[in-house]
């Protein structure tokens, strides 16, 4: 596998790294990253980071994966972070290298993913002169980073790296950018790595206010129709077990947002499915009929609430648990705010929670679930995308790490691949970034060499980062790459059909490469399936083949994602679609 562990023990290595030698900024950077336990960095070299790359040369302790595009590097670092909870790291050069990271930084920012993004910059002596390959990357990324640094003095570098890791991975997580001018990476100074971080003005509240937790418990004891809306925060804080305990004790039904999938087992009888635009009938109607809504690590995104006034109209109270106080009250009026780390809040709540009488409500939920399951009209002549996802789920027992790109296939994956464990579902929620799916799978696989990683993509999005096939081939990264080929920009086609009255404008992907040949051109095995039998055979072959495999499933072009709530509607005004 690609991450090699050195022969040295961790302690030996630490001791070596901490020596107060006089070293360059580049060497200090590598040492600091190793001291932060980073086991693989994704990146792409260039003039402004050549000292850094030079320091990597022959360094047996430092692992770096050369992607084929900076966007591939940052999405890979993102997938690494989402699948492990550790901080993902990527490196790019100044100017075009740095700006190629922008989409990935915004993606991580929107979904609260801890990243440390390292960019080179031109020398401090020429900063501000429009020097060759200069870009004000800290300025460009200010709105999409949790924090950023422009390092002006090599002596600050270790402290800044320590701070960056701390900021990225605590409170509400997010990307932190460190911009290192070329001369700083070459300047020398004695190495000193701080043990502690002290940043005045940065003290995320992780311990909740007990009174607010008690108020929440009182509200729960009184509620007859409570619902939990669980988001990515449950996954990120590692609170999945506490949530199950909480739900078992309170008998409150749970809906998990797109980023919350896996944060609560889909096999649980009280799971309602996903809410919102492509949510389940049960989840959306439960939200509209609940008398108490408990948001846990969920930020009430407009794809979840749809028309906000009209969202959860019968909720007498809304409880909102979040580590970011700015989320509370931002979208919905909150009666009981609980600021804190979700896991700690639930632990505290679990100590003395008393259930209300939710039995009638639970019966309603179960009936609704039985009456309105997710369905689609299957076909024996055409391959249906939903069928493909169901097959992926079935044949892997729901045990794989699944990453997706953005579009219809993403929604079908969210609907038909049932997740039972946190960190097994990786998708760009907040930004909806096409091109994210495949490289993020590479990062997830690097971090989880022993797990099965499946990357599900549309034929459109696959073409946004397909160059990273090279990485899989060369490094034998055994991602199973799925392309759901409907020959169009499917999700756009769906909107144009339903909202723009069948006026199909620029969605035809004619001219796409032969995906099987594309894979083979890079040295990755390629397979194609156009009907159910072929699908099963090809997929089995993919699973049985060690190493990376791309499987293209040619599916029905006109298939739509249902249920669907159109913009301006409340979430119970659902188009249920053409099920049978």
């Amino acid at each position: 596998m690609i991450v090699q562990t050195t022969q040295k023990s961790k302690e030996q290595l630490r001791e070596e790294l901490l020596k107060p030698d006089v070293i360059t900024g580049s060497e200090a950077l590598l040492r600091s990253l190793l001291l932060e336990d980073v086991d693989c960095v994704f990146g792409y070299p260039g003039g402004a980071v050549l000292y850094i790359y030079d320091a990597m040369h022959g360094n047996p302790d430092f692992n770096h994966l050369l992607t084929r595009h900076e966007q591939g590097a940052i999405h890979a670092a993102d997938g690494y972070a989402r699948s492990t909870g550790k901080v993902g790291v990527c490196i790019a050069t100044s100017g075009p290298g740095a700006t190629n990271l922008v989409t990935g930084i915004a993606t991580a920012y929107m979904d609260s993913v801890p990243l440390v993004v390292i960019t080179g910059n031109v020398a401090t002596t020429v900063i501000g002169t429009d020097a060759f390959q200069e870009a004000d990357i800290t300025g460009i990324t200010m709105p999409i980073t949790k924090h950023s640094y422009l390092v002006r003095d090599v002596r600050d570098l270790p402290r800044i790296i320590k701070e960056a890791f701390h900021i990225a991975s605590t409170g509400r997580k997010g990307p932190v950018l460190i911009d290192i001018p070329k001369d700083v990476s070459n300047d020398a100074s004695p190495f000193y790595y701080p043990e502690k971080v002290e940043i005045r003005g940065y003290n995320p509240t992780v311990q909740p206010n007990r009174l607010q937790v008690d108020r929440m418990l009182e509200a729960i004891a009184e509620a007859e129709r409570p619902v939990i809306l669980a988001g990515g925060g449950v996954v990120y804080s590692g609170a999945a077990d506490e949530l199950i305990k909480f739900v078992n004790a309170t008998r409150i039904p749970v809906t998990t947002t797109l980023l919350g999938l896996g944060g609560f087992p889909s096999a649980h009888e009280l799971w309602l499915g996903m809410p919102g635009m492509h949510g389940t009938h049960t989840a959306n109607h439960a939200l509209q009929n609940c008398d108490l809504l408990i948001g846990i690590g969920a930020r009430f995104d407009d794809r979840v609430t749809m028309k906000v006034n009209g969202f959860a109209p019968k909720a007498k109270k809304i409880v909102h648990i979040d580590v970011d106080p700015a989320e509370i009250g931002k979208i919905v009026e909150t009666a009981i705010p609980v600021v804190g780390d979700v896991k700690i809040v639930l632990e505290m709540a679990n100590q003395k929670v008393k259930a209300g009488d939710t039995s009638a409500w639970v019966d309603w939920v179960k009936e609704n679930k039985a009456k309105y399951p997710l369905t689609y009209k299957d076909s024996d002549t055409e391959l249906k995308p939903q069928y493909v996802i169901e097959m992926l789920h079935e044949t892997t027992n729901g045990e794989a790490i699944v990453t997706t790109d953005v579009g219809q296939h993403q929604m079908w994956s969210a609907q038909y691949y049932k997740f039972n464990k946190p960190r097994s579902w990786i998708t760009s929620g907040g930004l909806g970034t096409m091109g994210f799916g495949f490289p993020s799978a590479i990062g997830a696989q690097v971090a989880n060499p022993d797990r099965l990683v499946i990357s599900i993509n549309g034929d459109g999005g696959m073409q946004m980062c397909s160059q990273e096939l090279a990485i899989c081939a060369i490094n034998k990264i055994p991602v199973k790459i799925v392309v759901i080929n409907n020959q169009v920009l499917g999700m756009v086609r769906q909107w144009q059909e339903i909202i723009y009255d069948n006026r199909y404008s620029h969605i035809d992907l004619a001219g796409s490469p032969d995906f099987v040949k594309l894979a083979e051109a890079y040295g990755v095995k390629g397979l194609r399936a156009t009907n159910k039998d072929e699908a099963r055979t090809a997929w089995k072959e993919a699973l049985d083949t060690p190493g990376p495999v791309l499987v293209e499933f040619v599916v029905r072009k006109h298939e739509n994602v249902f249920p669907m709530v159109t913009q301006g509607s409340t979430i119970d005004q659902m188009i249920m679609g053409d099920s049978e």
Partner: protein
Amino acid sequence: MSYKHTISVLVNNQPGVLQRVSGLFGRRGFNIESITVGESEEKGLSRMVIVTTGDDKTLEQVSKQLYKLIDVIKVVDLSANPMVGRELALIKVNAEPSARPEILGVVETFRAAVVDIGPSSLIVQVVGDSEKIDAMTELLKPYGIKELSRTGVTAMIRGK
């Protein structure tokens, strides 16, 4: 209901901190009426005073979002307390010698000062709350204002 709010923000004196704060306002659709920055009582920290309008909910968001910036140490809504707010303006006004006595009358009433005299103009310096400066400019308008420069409000809570 929208009100005018005066917020004081204590920040680390880091490069880019003004950009972070003002950028946050722009990006989140919060309005800045004025912003002043200067050193604070503590070395390494600056104080920004920002005047903004919005309802209570907006103000709460503004303050929470500001706290999310790593370089922001403290945010206080000064207007929630009895406060002193002051602004300075320099007004270059047309002043032919014949008109000067009248103008000087206005200046005196407002306890403003003339800080420069040119052949056909005066620069008037006025300090006070924004309303006072508004009133002063209104009164000087008839003479012809050639240039007006205001500092924006700086403010403090009374007493304590």
